[in-house]
């Protein structure tokens, strides 16, 4: 037997709260004020209600492509909360909450879902890219944005997200590798929710964890309880600080679960998950656990929760109304946004559409 020198070490996993919201790792508890702790809860509740409303709107045919987020709120909210306002997010298609909490108006997220160009017209002071559909493409681009910040000497951090399936893509490895070689201020968060549509995590990799994939790139990797908002916040905060200090990229695997289907486009999770499985994961529901934690500290009440629920419902209603009011796209308008200046043959196409012919 040859001596195989390279062996994967144990998975190191960061947990802070247990399933009942009790602190199990006092040393890792982040220094957050009571107000900040409450804000994390507020955002998670808000996002859960928004997601439920979005699913309902989708079922009514009032949204387009939508990937439900319930179950993953702790990772989404906790990671974004650890960033500065001018840090940059490159989202996957499910990562709508992060970019909205980072500043994208919610009505634009709905327009994106419906397939309207204005959904991607990110306001100038919001530092995000449009959601990426091609799995993994955002990771190589994130390395580029991080390199740009580094070259300009800006102390800004880049974060990008993918799933357990995304960690199988070539772009995932290329992005991590580039970030390692150039020592870039990049955080790659893998939301391991157990399934790439229907394919289970076990069929994606034989590596003991997705965090292990950092080893090959020579960068730090960590696994966190992705349904514990404090653990996610702590991991991302630490990675962001190291990135800002010039210490390079980090891979974070957040172990989580999506309670709903992959998307609203016909996915039926009962075809690939047992009846019992979601129930088991619901015991780790990030909102329930964090509510227990906050209630124990006297920081959260039913009244506050009801107020957030009403606020979220109102916000969704207003955002949908604003999306409804947005002017329709026109073919001449779209033609004008392909190049800086439409070349003559495209001008002809534009003129044809403008003339109303073919209607």
């Amino acid at each position, binding site marked *: 037997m040859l001596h195989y020198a390279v062996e994967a070490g144990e998975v190191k996993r960061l947990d802070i709260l247990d399933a009942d919201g009790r602190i199990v790792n006092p040393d890792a508890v982040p220094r957050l004020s009571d107000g900040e702790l409450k804000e994390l809860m507020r955002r998670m509740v808000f996002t859960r209600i928004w997601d439920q409303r979005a699913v309902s709107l989708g079922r009514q045919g009032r949204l387009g492509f939508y990937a439900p987020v319930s179950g993953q709120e702790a990772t989404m909210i906790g990671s974004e909360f650890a960033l500065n306002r001018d840090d940059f997010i490159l989202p996957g298609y499910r990562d709508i909450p992060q970019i909205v909490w980072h500043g994208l108006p919610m009505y634009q997220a709905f327009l994106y879902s419906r397939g309207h*160009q*204005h959904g*991607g*017209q*990110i306001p*100038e002071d919001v530092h995000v*890219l*449009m959601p990426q559909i*091609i799995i993994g*493409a955002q*990771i*190589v*681009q*994130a*390395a*580029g*944005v*991080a*390199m*740009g*910040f580094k*070259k*300009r000497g800006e102390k800004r951090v880049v974060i990008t997200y993918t799933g357990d399936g995304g960690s199988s893509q*070539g*772009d995932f490895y*290329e*992005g991590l*590798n*580039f970030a390692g*070689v150039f020592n870039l201020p990049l955080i790659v968060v893998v939301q391991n929710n157990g399934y790439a549509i229907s394919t289970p995590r076990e069929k994606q990799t034989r590596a003991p964890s997705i965090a292990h994939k950092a080893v090959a790139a020579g960068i730090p990797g960590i696994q966190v309880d992705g349904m514990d908002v404090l653990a996610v916040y702590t991991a991302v905060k630490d990675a962001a600080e190291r990135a800002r200090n010039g210490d390079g990229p980090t891979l974070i695997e957040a172990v989580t679960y999506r309670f709903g289907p992959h998307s609203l486009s016909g996915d039926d999770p009962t075809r690939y998950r047992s009846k019992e499985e979601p129930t088991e994961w619901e015991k780790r529901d990030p909102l329930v656990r964090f509510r227990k934690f906050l209630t124990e500290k006297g920081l959260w009440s039913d009244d506050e929760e009801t107020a957030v629920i009403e606020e979220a419902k109102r916000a969704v209603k207003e955002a949908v109304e604003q999306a409804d009011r947005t002017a329709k796209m026109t073919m001449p308008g*779209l033609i004008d*946004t*392909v*190049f*800086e200046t439409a*070349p*003559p*043959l*495209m001008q002809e196409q534009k003129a044809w559409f403008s003339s109303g012919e073919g209607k």
Partner: protein
Amino acid sequence: MAQMTMIQAITDALRTELARDPNVLVFGEDVGHYGGVFRATEGLQKEFGEERVFDTPLAESGIGGLAIGLAVTGFRPVAEIQFIGFIFEAMDSICGQASRLRFRSGGRYRAPIVFRSPFGVGVKAAEYHTDNLEGLLAQTPGLKVVVPSNPYDAKGLLISAIRDDDPVFFLEHMKLYRSFREEVPEGDYTVPIGKAKVVREGTDATVIAYGAMVHTSLKAAEEIAKTRGAQVEVIDLRTLNPLDAETIIASVKKTGRAIVVQEAQRIAGVAAEVAALINEKAILHLEAPVLRVASPDIPFSFPLAEDEWVPNPARVTAALHEVLDF
């Protein structure tokens, strides 16, 4: 003015833009310390430093993604894809992502990226090195595709490409890299993207070509002049997307006969697009069908068969006889 080969003109364009604009970055596999496998970036890292001119890991999709991210932060990346066949690894970055960044964001983001890559038949390179993939690129909305046929145009077009606010794929024909020298001005000048050039005037037929096929077509035009006294006009497209319909159509209206010559295989290529354009805009001026001269519909041939695969002056001459005799 200096006498330069096309590769020297390309290096000179990169140097000119690196010196002019601090946002210009040049990178790719072996482009830094080594100066590129064809020496296109020779001396540039020494002159401008490793922050501006650098080697990347060997991963074309990564190079494409890097370029897009750098563009998002305001840089003007010039990314070398070492050989044309390697773009298959980067098709998402080039044709899926960079080309659509402006469109998907409704103008909020743009991708002023130049992808440079050597291509083309005639140097007996290994497989996947010399393919003619310009048809794939030219079919991509949002991506400009430029193919110079000589040193002067190469420098002026590359400078234009670097200054362009949209992504440009800049195709460098390997056989033309060092095949001849010509006068190339020092310093700054541009050749506009989207403008074809009449490189030989004529009244009896028009040949539309690009890249190395411009030279093949010029030889055929001389042959036709010698053997039958007909004057053939030759147009160098220089840009494949956007096409310069104005120059093409003006010539065809004058001559009434046209052939389109491409090195690529025939199916669904640039020649078909040009022929369709002529049909749409000048059919009543035509005295003969528009013919295509192209390679057969097989993958880019094995090096030992490439001389037979690629259109030569005799094939162009035959097509010209056909339209002149029609």
